[in-house]
């Protein structure tokens, strides 16, 4: 007789029916069943019960005889539920995906309308229209820094660029009494780093000699982020004012002493606080400065032949 009790054997018979008997237990059970008719009968009874349960239940609910569920209606119902907020928790919040960008756009529009613009639009328009006109006009007292528009820094980075409309001399100071330090080439882009109080001269770092030099603004086109602008309208935060260098001591040429001393007069030894003190270049002042009967620069050639352009401040020397 095996060491396994009938009680233990019948428990194992049930566990075997449930598919959870270990191999060693299975071996011992087989050993017991081979010797025990009662436990064999129990196992046979259980097997018969299981078979009967399967057949009875399948007769009750035969797979082939089941009524067909309304599949299409079921699927439609599922999809309807999803479209009305069912499904994953976030699917009911899909409208937020549309709302968020809309709010961002509205906020951006509101911000644009309430934030002061860095430059007055009218000034930009004027600048756009005026370069050709100002190119031939004389510098006047209207080019003053008194009417600078308010400027509020924004997230946009503003870049001020000067583009010569022709080659422009870049001098050591704000008149042709100063030596030419460098040349700003036509159509090239240069970044000014300061300007005179009168907005007539802008300071650069000479592209060749890398020394500070001043260029008369008449033949310079200024742009802010590619938008033309008059220098007078450029905010100080973008281009600060700087004092002009002291006028160099005139070098008197003995042969032309009287003439030289007369023509190379200091323009503005010290910067005047008011634009009214700004001297107009001789070739634009409407006077015959050198007494040769010719007055100022005239693009038709009928003016003073010594005047190279309207910015020339010496009618005597070409």
């Amino acid at each position, binding site marked *: 007789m095996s060491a396994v009790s*009938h009680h233990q054997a019948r428990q194992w018979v*049930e*566990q075997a029916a*449930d*598919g*959870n008997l270990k191999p060693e237990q299975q071996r011992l059970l087989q050993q017991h069943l081979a010797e*025990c*008719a*009662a436990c064999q*009968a129990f196992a*046979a*009874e*259980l097997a*018969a*019960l*299981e078979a*009967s*349960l*399967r*057949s*009875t*239940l*399948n*007769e*009750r*609910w*035969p*797979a082939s*005889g*089941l*009524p067909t*569920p*309304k*599949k299409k*209606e*079921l*699927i439609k*119902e*599922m*999809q309807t*539920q*999803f*479209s009305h907020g*069912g*499904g*994953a*928790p*976030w*699917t009911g919040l899909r409208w937020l995906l549309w709302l968020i960008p809309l709010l961002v756009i509205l906020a951006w529009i509101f911000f644009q309308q309430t934030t002061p613009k860095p430059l007055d639009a009218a000034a930009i328009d004027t600048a756009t229209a005026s370069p050709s006109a100002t190119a031939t006009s004389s510098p006047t007292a209207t080019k003053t820094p008194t009417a600078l528009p308010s400027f509020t820094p924004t997230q946009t980075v503003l870049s001020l660029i000067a583009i010569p409309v022709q080659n422009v001399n870049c001098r050591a100071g704000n008149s042709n009494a100063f030596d030419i330090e460098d040349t700003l080439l036509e159509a090239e882009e240069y970044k000014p780093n300061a300007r005179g109080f009168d907005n007539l001269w802008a300071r650069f770092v000479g592209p060749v000699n890398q020394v500070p030099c001043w260029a008369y603004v008449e033949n310079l086109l200024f742009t802010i982020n590619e938008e033309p602008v008059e220098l007078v309208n450029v905010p100080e935060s973008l281009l600060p004012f700087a004092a002009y260098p002291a006028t160099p001591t005139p070098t008197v040429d003995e042969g032309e002493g009287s003439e030289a001393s007369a023509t190379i007069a200091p323009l503005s030894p010290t910067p005047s606080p008011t634009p009214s003190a700004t001297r107009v270049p001789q070739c634009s002042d409407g006077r015959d400065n050198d007494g040769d009967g010719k007055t100022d620069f005239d693009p038709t050639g009928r003016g003073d032949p010594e005047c190279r352009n309207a910015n020339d401040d010496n009618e005597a020397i070409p």
Partner: protein
Amino acid sequence: MDSELLAKCRRGDAEAIETLVNEHQAGVYRLCLSILDDPADAQDATQESFAAALKALAGFRGDAAFNTWLFSIAINTCRALLRQRQRRARLHEQLVDPSMPDKESKQSPERSLIEHERSQALWGAISRLDEKHRLTIVLRYYHDLSTQQIAEVLGINVGTVHSRLSAARSQLTGELKRANLGFSQEQEGQP
């Protein structure tokens, strides 16, 4: 279950939902029918089960088989339906009805009288089991779930499944014996 298919279902993809329903609808319906024993109720329960499953799909981690997870939802749905409609008593009455008119005619003529009677008696005995034992028997012998799967579906441990199956089988065997419809003559006097 294809995780991509489940992901599409989560997004409300019509085609994916149809595929999901096609794959599992029959099994869920059979389960609901085996619990509710009423085709119309089973159909409602099937629909509710799928709706509940799709709503809870985001929480399905794939730890269990999708089928098992779906079955557990269907069982809960059926139980809720039973409670809501106070169907238990009515179901009990239906199940113990010895006439079983719609099944009678489907019996095979070759079956012996004793087998026929035993089957009817067994069905009556099943219907008299309490819900937890009856459901365990149905899952095991009608849906052919393993004890591990039953444990997952019902949210109980495997040992409990074994004890429920054993207790249910013992009760069923006892009832059949009392009706002299047992499967064998117990040999008396064995230790």
